């Protein structure tokens, strides 16, 4: 009885999130628009994924925690159910308990620690998430992820859960790729040892080939976003990376979803139409387009200022295709993708030049009118690059704004304050 109670407690958040996704599926299904069809398809796969994890917990079957940036092609090839543990605080805006959880985390940890990391750590310490069979930890691109995984490994309920974390090199050279490929191979051995699932190289090849198609489509879609007006608004970047490196990895349904998205964008580009009412400002939002702000801030930007987020940190990607001709090439390709392509990892893992190169490229390719660095309180390395970002933008003659906010907690900087800063910036720069 006690065991069941504990399991129920650990599943509660996942189940509540599942309920909300199910409601979204129902609502989208009743709507005939193309947008809602795309959203329905995504929500259905997310639901399916949640169900698989919930089943594993209830039936005692192996599943792991891992992340989009830890070569998810490998879990897909091993047919290993995986769940991104940081997804819960990330999608926290869907749950009514977010503020309560933030308050809970504040009682335990310093509140200058990234909210996502703090809330995740709180879930571990308060025993609010199911314990997996193994963990592939993420120890980059920030200090928060490193020490969060150390906390997980030290918690009394979790310390016996085997954990592997690939060590990220700081450089982008061949030596770094070889080193990280070696780490990924050690990760496979670890997963085979602790989950009973085996790696099938032929299956890995299939998954990567499907992934390559998705990355090609991602590139094709981003070409369409160069159009003026931009066919789609905010939020698509997060969805794109979610499809190509999330639960759709190696899944032909993800490829089909991307094709549908491209068809919709092509239609709008041909009609010289954008989803936003009237595009007046083309904006590069250089961070996460968080769910927490998706209901208030981003729609306001489009409606009030005609400011369209043409590109964001998660939507932009160098689209490395992986050579599948042999095992070594596949692991080196996965290493490159994990280090150089993955949103946020690609910018924040190494030198500041990675941020600057993205700014230069995106401004030129997407006819950007202004760059906004939200200055999320957890992104300390990025905020230590803010002067260099500003100078880079100045060289290109594009206005730059650094706000200073918490992307996941509106109490840090209120939405009204953020709106004020943006309005003052647009006005001062003569935009919109």
């Amino acid at each position, binding site marked *: 009885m006690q065991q069941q109670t504990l399991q129920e407690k650990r599943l509660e958040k996942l189940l509540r999130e599942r309920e909300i996704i199910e409601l979204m599926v129902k609502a989208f299904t009743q709507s005939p628009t193309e947008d809602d069809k795309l959203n329905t398809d995504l929500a259905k796969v997310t639901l399916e994924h949640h169900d698989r994890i919930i089943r594993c917990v209830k039936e005692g079957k192996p599943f792991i925690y891992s992340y989009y940036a830890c070569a998810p092609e490998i879990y897909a090839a091993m047919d290993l159910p995986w769940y991104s543990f940081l997804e819960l605080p990330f999608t926290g805006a869907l749950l009514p308990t977010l503020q309560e959880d933030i308050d809970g985390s504040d009682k*335990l*940890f*310093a509140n*200058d*620690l*990234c909210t996502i*990391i703090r809330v995740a*750590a709180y879930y571990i310490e308060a025993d609010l998430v199911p314990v997996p069979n193994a963990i592939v*930890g993420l*120890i*980059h691109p*920030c*200090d*928060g992820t*490193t*020490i*969060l*995984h*150390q*906390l997980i*490994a*030290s918690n009394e309920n979790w310390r016996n859960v085997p*954990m592997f*974390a690939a*060590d*990220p*090199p*700081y*450089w982008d050279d061949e*030596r*770094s790729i070889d*080193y990280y490929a*070696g*780490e990924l191979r*050690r990760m496979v051995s670890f997963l085979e040892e602790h989950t009973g699932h085996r790696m099938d190289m032929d299956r890995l090849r299939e998954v990567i080939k499907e992934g390559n198609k998705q990355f090609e489509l991602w590139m094709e879609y981003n070409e369409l976003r160069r159009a003026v007006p931009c066919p789609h608004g905010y939020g698509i970047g997060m969805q794109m990376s979610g499809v190509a490196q999330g639960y759709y990895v190696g899944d032909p349904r993800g490829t089909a979803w991307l094709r549908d998205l491209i068809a919709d964008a092509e239609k709008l580009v041909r009609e010289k139409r954008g989803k936003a009412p009237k595009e007046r400002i083309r904006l590069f939002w250089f961070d996460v387009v968080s769910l927490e702000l998706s209901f208030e801030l981003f729609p306001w930007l489009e409606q009030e200022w005609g400011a369209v987020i043409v590109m964001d940190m998660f939507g932009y990607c160098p689209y490395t295709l992986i050579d599948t001709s042999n095992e070594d090439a596949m692991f080196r390709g996965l290493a490159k993708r994990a280090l150089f392509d993955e949103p946020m990892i690609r910018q924040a893992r190494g*030198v*500041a*030049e990675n941020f600057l190169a993205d700014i230069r490229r995106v401004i030129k390719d997407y006819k950007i009118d202004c760059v906004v660095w939200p*200055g999320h*309180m*957890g992104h*300390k*390395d990025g*905020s*230590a*690059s*803010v*002067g*260099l970002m500003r100078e880079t933008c100045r060289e290109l003659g594009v206005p730059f704004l*650094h706000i*200073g906010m918490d992307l996941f907690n509106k109490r840090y900087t209120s939405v009204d304050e953020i709106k004020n800063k943006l309005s003052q910036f647009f006005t001062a720069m003569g935009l919109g």
Partner: protein
Amino acid sequence: MQTSIKSRALKEFAEATATLANPAVEEWKRQGGKVVGYFCSYFPEEIATAAGFLPFRMRATGSKGTELADAYLSSINCSFTRHCFNMGLLGEYGFIDGAVCLSTCDHVRRVYDNWKWKVNTPFVHMMSLPKKVEEPQVGWYRDEMVNLKQALEKHFSVKITDDRLWEAIRLHNETRRLQRQLYELRKRQNPPITGAEALSVMVAGTAMPKQQYNLLLRELLDEISQREGNADYKARLMILGGILDDPGYIEVIEEQGGLVVTDMLCFGTKIMWKDVPEGTGDPLAALAQYYIAERPSCPRMFGDYPRRADFVRDMVREFKVDGIIGERLIFCDLWALEHYLQAKESKAGGVPYLILDREYLLAGIGQLRTRVQAFLETIRR
């Protein structure tokens, strides 16, 4: 707790700690010596020594503000990096011939990018520091040392031979042995040196030529080893944290009656509790093994927490510690959760633990005093 040591050596150490370009550095420069500044205690000082250079641990001692740096860094970056970069922008670090950064943490690693763009130091180099402590990481870091060695050789037209590296390792091991002797004295019931004085000695070790430092430290050890120690204290304390380089901070704690007898700091046991194994093989392999896998690690090293916790337990036992103070620079994510873990474990073991957030420059002394007083009350030794 007032010092009563009237030692020439301690005076020189205190002076080296209270300034940047101290007399020893000035003399070194006058004789044409080169100085290589470094930003993290994982920097293999021995390589700089083997090149004939003076390794100098970067600090922001004497900084008055962060106005210039704030245009490049932000208010959520730690005050150590902001002050340090500000001093770089002000030209206070004109005496260094090279700067080496490591991918230590989210704040310090960005000093590299900003320094390279904005400060006119002739040689600026970055090392990729692994985040784990296993065999592949030792191999990776050895290669990083090869890159550093080659970069120094190329830029400064010097040759760093294996023989010179072994010689440097022996010299630095001697420093570490002497520093451990100093800590041995602190194990006494009445330690002959305060925590603030000991920190001065340790900081000076990163700002003076090692031969000169070792001579002075031997002199100090001779002077104080027979000395009557401090008996007037309420509790024996250990300090845990990162870059604490200001003895004034410990002075405030000791003025309240706590005697700091040991630590796990970047200017403390972390840099000297173990030696590099001396031998005749590959000196860089020996250094990589020491820096990554042997010495007490930083919280950035994933998977090594149990060894860090064991180290703290051993320190508490060996130094008869009554309570632990965990200091953290505000905005440091690593120490935020490391202190949480250490405090939980420490309290479960019956050792009180106080977490103090601080800014790099000593401020809020009144609040610090009150919190330490309250903490000492809870210890009630």
